[in-house]
């Protein structure tokens, strides 16, 4: 379909553009971007885009599919719809499905059904953290990179993985977490965990693993993406490592930027995350981290669970929450509408930088580029309910709440 978007506010972090103009889209490509476009084919569909924002498609570093294995939580089809409905044009999915994506056949099957979803290949067989997968074959099969989505505790294995990976030229995403220290902790240890009577997961459960990981990276030299950064001390460790020139990038999740342990007063099972929500101090440090570029990107870590799975006591709830359809409106309201971040800063964290962390060319709004775009209305309000979500699961603390900001259209 050929379209003319008239007087749309264009945000393009790649070129640093924030201006209002007309955008002509022909046959899936951006044909022209000009202050006013007067020449266009007769079959064009015109749209008045007053008050709307057009940015490059959003890119999610890591989220979970239910399929294969847990289709009642999310199918590949519903996941893809949720991504598009949330403005995401590229979605990297974690391999801890059932069976896991740890062999080329699993990659091929997934890509055949859902070309928009790109899998991370498992680092270890069965994502068990024991034995390396055939990473070279997986790389040839088209994985975006390597991740288990679970901590790899064995540092000897981790070291060999990072060495073996070097000639393959693919990104690797690691989650720094030390399970013995985490224990049965279900929320960040602190005054709030004491008050709420919930077992504490101490910050050192993350930072001690991160410090060890950074030492391995420094010794081996393989670039590493650190996923799910959740503590203030981790931000310091990463800042220090980057200042020493370590080849690392890092991400935190959208929930960790918006909420902290105080929210758990509600005991809402969808606030049970791994890593857990940080203290208010952690949350502020993470915001500083993304503002200053110490943390490169915001990930969604969309983790669907059914109503039955999540309607249990907080401690018994499986960790994770959905987010693809909620992240942009809520981040915009809390970070941009408040003036803390510029629109371009937020868009860079959700589109350009995640693509770069995946070693991909980021989407951009340039004549000649494919139309990989998100049209966003920051003022439109809508209610989060099961009928309004494409995701099959509704495990989010915002269920039933009214949000301001909605994705109008996604081109991908």
């Amino acid at each position, binding site marked *: 379909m050929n379209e003319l978007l008239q007087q749309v506010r264009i945000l393009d972090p790649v070129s640093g553009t924030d201006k209002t103009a007309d955008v002509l889209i022909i046959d899936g490509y951006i044909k022209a971007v000009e202050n006013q476009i007067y020449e266009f084919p007769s079959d064009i569909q015109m749209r008045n885009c007053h008050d709307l924002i057009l940015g490059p498609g959003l890119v999610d570093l890591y989220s979970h599919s239910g399929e294969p294995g847990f289709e009642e939580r999310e199918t590949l089809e519903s996941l893809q719809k949720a991504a598009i409905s949330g403005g995401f044009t590229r979605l990297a999915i974690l391999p801890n499905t059932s069976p896991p994506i740890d062999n080329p056949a699993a990659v091929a099957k997934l890509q055949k059904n859902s070309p928009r979803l790109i899998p991370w290949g498992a680092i270890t067989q069965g994502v068990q953290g024991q034995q390396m997968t055939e990473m070279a074959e997986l790389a040839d099969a088209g994985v975006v990179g390597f991740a288990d989505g679970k901590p790899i505790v064995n540092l000897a294995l981790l070291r060999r993985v990072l060495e073996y990976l070097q000639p393959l030229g693919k990104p690797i995403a690691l989650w720094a977490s030390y399970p013995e220290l985490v*224990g049965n902790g279900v929320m960040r*240890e*602190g*005054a*709030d*965990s*004491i*008050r*709420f*009577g*919930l*077992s504490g997961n101490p910050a050192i459960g993350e930072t001690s693993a991160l410090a060890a990981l950074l030492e391995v990276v420094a010794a081996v030299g393989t670039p590493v993406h650190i996923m799910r950064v959740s503590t203030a001390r981790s931000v310091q460790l990463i800042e220090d490592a980057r200042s020493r020139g370590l080849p690392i990038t890092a991400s935190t999740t959208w929930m960790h930027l918006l909420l902290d342990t105080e929210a758990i007063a*509600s*005991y809402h099972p969808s606030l049970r995350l791994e890593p857990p929500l940080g203290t208010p101090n952690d949350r502020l440090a993470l915001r500083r981290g993304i503002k200053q570029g110490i943390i490169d990107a915001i990930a969604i870590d969309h983790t669907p669970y059914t*109503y*039955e799975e999540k*309607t*249990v*006591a*907080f*401690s*018994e709830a499986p960790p994770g929450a959905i987010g693809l359809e909620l992240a942009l409106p809520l981040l915009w309201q809390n970070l941009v509408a408040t003036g803390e971040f510029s629109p371009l800063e937020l868009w860079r964290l959700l589109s350009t930088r995640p693509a770069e962390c995946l070693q991909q060319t980021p989407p951009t709004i340039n004549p000649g580029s494919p139309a990989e775009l998100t049209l966003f209305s920051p003022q439109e309000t809508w209610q989060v309910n099961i009928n309004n979500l494409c995701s099959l699961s509704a495990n989010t603390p915002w269920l039933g709440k009214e949000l301001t900001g909605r994705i109008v259209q996604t081109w991908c």
Partner: protein
Amino acid sequence: MGSIWTREHIISLADFLPAEYDIVLQTAASFQEVLSRRVKKVPTLQGQVVANLFFEPSTRTRNSFELAAKRLSADTLSFAPASSSLTKGETILDTAKTYLAMGTNIMVIRHREAGVPQAIAQEMDRLQSQVSVLNAGDGQHEHPSQALLDLFTICSVLEPKQPKIELLQNKKVTIVGDILHSRVARSNIWSLTAAGAEVHLAGPPTLLPKLFADWVSENQANSAIPERKLFLHWDVEPALKDADFVMTLRLQRERMTQHLLPSLREYHQRYGITRARLKLCKSGVKVLHPGPVNRGVEISSDLMDDPEFSLISQQVTSGVAIRMALLYLIGGAKS
């Protein structure tokens, strides 16, 4: 009596006000009097249904609530997890809604995890059901009825006829043991500090992390209650010095496998309540324990049976009167 009571659910004592404590104590005292009569029953909750939803097994607390409800002439229902549908895919909210559909007025809820009574109370409010929820112990969070019966027991020792919280002003109450995992300690910290008592916590650092001090100081400012007096001790002797009341807590054996303690023996040596240690306290000191007691671990076996010191059986008796008061206040008083 109960004329200014507005609270619909009793989930936590964190925001209880001094006036509310006094209403509970006065109400309990009048029910205590009922319990001393020949006919120990009043028609207060006649026609009302009290459901004991004990997702975590408990005999003592469940029986105490059941007896309290029966003394108030309520009809009682019991939920036993062994025969429940929870293993068949039913959620906790489904269970609560089933009891709502049976016409339950008050749900008394115990669960091994924190937050479940609150979740059910929220669901009942969302459904505009008028059902009141009473937390009978949730995980390591709170156990309000236990703390209130402790408060009632202590106040009754100080002034049997007219228990009121001002009696506790500047009294020293020492809580010894596994504070970290104790819902009883958490509720007691709220109630005793609100009453103006000096509360001293004692235990090894693994079971009494410094975070307890932060927790109370962070909740200082937004409260209508005068400054809460809370002190932490990793040695038991200074905590016991001149104490008026000593509360010991049950120590679970599994703490040894969690790297929290080397042995029960060393625990008893360092923190066990013995006759010798009680000499540090004020004369006339009384000892409380929420039960069940590990004899010879948290308290010397013979002390437990010594009426000169032990308030343990008074606590159990007070429990029925307090629970009658709570059921009356959230059930009967508002209708």
